[in-house]
């Protein structure tokens, strides 16, 4: 599909037209940080964001989502997708969404996620500011971002808009787009390549070699215990991760004590009780009892277990876990460095 150009001065009108046409979600400022939220005006859109607090997965896999609603013994499913535009997603989050798409679709397709995903037009955008703990320039280089409907790149005087699907193409009618020149396309290409060299952190080795080393360290209990020594088991690293999708399911009553919903909420494998079962008489068996075991499970999930299925690691280098970790031990770059050294 061909590339298009929109002038900086026409851009606000484009976003305004999108907002008028459909619900639009994009990066907005929240005090000194950024979040994905519904746009009410084009001024709220902050394409100069570095990273958002939570990844955009929350729009398809909400922090709390009803799966089944019940009233006495009557029950029904409650997938009610909303057609929307998700605008301004950085390439690392696009990669992560593509991974969760695959994981929710494989074996038993979960339409509670997929329906929301399918009716979304996903517009990726170039990175203009780099987050302090980002390493997307070096992680999983073999995995290309896909699954987005268009890619928007900031260049001198405006934006290059490259549709990749008919859904992405359909947005063109909302803005004063012209054909992008070869120079503009080249400038966009260069901007997207150059930014990758500006990450403050870097993985020194390719994914396959990291996966081998991490796998080989599986039985090194001392190493994992040491890495997890200061872990609070709070699960913040899981919560902010764009590729984490574990959940809990609980029934919640309405005040009438007759109706309610079976609801899923985000869960975190770093928490102590995540893999615990009750044996009765107050006894428990925890299949990942120690912090070291739980810490290892997360790193294995990110660097090893899913690689074959996803074509690369289940980490996209957003650096959110590094920033969110209270004791600052979650940073995959540092963890991997220590494993490789050990």
């Amino acid at each position: 599909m061909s590339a298009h150009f929109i002038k900086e001065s026409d851009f606000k009108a484009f976003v305004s037209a999108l907002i008028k046409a459909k619900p639009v979600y994009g990066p907005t400022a929240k005090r000194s940080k950024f979040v994905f939220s519904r746009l009410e005006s084009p001024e709220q859109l902050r394409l100069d964001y570095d990273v958002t607090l939570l990844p955009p997965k929350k729009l398809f896999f909400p922090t709390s989502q009803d799966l089944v609603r019940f009233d006495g013994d009557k029950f029904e499913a409650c997938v009610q997708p909303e057609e929307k535009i998700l605008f301004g997603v950085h390439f690392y989050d696009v990669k992560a969404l593509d991974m969760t798409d695959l994981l929710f679709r494989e074996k038993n397709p979960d339409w509670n996620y997929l329906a929301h995903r399918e009716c979304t037009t996903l517009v990726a955008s170039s990175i203009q500011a780099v987050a302090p703990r980002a390493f997307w320039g070096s992680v999983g280089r073999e995995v290309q971002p896909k699954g987005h409907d268009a890619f928007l790149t900031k260049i001198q005087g405006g934006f290059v808009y490259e549709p990749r699907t008919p859904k992405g193409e359909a947005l063109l009618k909302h803005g004063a787009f012209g054909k992008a020149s070869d120079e503009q396309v080249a400038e966009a290409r260069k901007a997207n390549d150059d930014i990758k060299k500006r990450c403050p952190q870097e993985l020194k080795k390719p994914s396959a070699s990291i996966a081998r080393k991490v796998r080989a360290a599986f039985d090194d209990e001392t190493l994992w215990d040491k890495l997890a020594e200061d872990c609070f088991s709070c699960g913040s690293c899981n919560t902010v991760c764009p590729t984490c999708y574990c959940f809990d399911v609980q029934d919640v009553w309405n005040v009438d004590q007759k109706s309610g919903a079976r609801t899923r909420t985000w869960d975190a494998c770093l928490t102590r009780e995540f893999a615990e079962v009750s044996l009765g008489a107050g006894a428990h068996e925890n299949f990942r009892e120690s912090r070291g075991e739980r810490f290892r499970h997360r790193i294995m999930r990110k660097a090893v277990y899913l690689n074959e299925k996803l074509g690369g690691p289940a980490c996209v280098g957003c650096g959110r876990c590094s920033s969110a970790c209270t004791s600052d031990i979650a940073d995959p770059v540092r963890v991997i460095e220590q494993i490789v050294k050990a």
Partner: protein
Amino acid sequence: MDSTCTCGEKHGKTQSNLFLPKEAKIVRVEAPTENERHFTLKLADGSPMEFEPGQILEVGLFGFGEIPLGFASSPTRKNTFDIVIRGVGRVSKALNALKKGDSLFLRGPLGKGFDLSKLRGRDVLIIAGGIGLCPTRSLIQYILDRRSEFKRFILFYGSRDPKQQLFLEDLAEWRKSKDVEYHETVDKGDPSWKGNVGVITRLFGKTNIDPGTRAALCGPPIMFKFVIAELDKLGIPRENVFVDLERRMKCGVGKCGHCQINDKYVCTDGPVFSFAEIQGLEEAV
């Protein structure tokens, strides 16, 4: 509710929602122990429940939640199916308060059960510890119902004490039956108990077992380690040892992450695994 989107597409309209259960009616309730209830069930719409021994179900009650359980009866017994619930938490206690004629709500069958093709034509040894007898009862009944398809059939059952024994009618029958070589023990006897006392591995001294035997195990995690050591001593290759595992599960369909052992999902890759498949996985037993 219609899953039609505001965009007019019917995303997943033709797919059934993974979390929608089927209603089942309770045909019979028994109380084998103080904490356990043995339910005999029938699907409310009259359709048969088709499953394999070793497969699991999510059993739930709206307003309380769901728990994963194995089938406790064989698919060869067509009209009804059984589950046994130990009342340990909020959901299981709510389920155990149900009476004959009440409804509960099921998703399943889920996961992979015992690979019967690997057991047919072979000597089969089943080792069940405590409540581990429930999911293995599905296989036990299957073998007894199709006895000619299997060779020698040996069953070991261990309980904490005589009061914890489940399926008393079955046990009485198995003790007399010529179709199964049944051996039982309790960790701690009582004055009325005349049988074996001691851990389940003691039963290995009661009979000779051929190294070509296929073994199926279900019980508390601690039991696996000791039983597998005994099976190793007998020279039974680990690919012929099948373990039925229990884990925390929320979805039962390979998504929620709770039941993972390393990179395997107990709910979809198991709950029955050959021991060779999982022996390298440190978190397995």
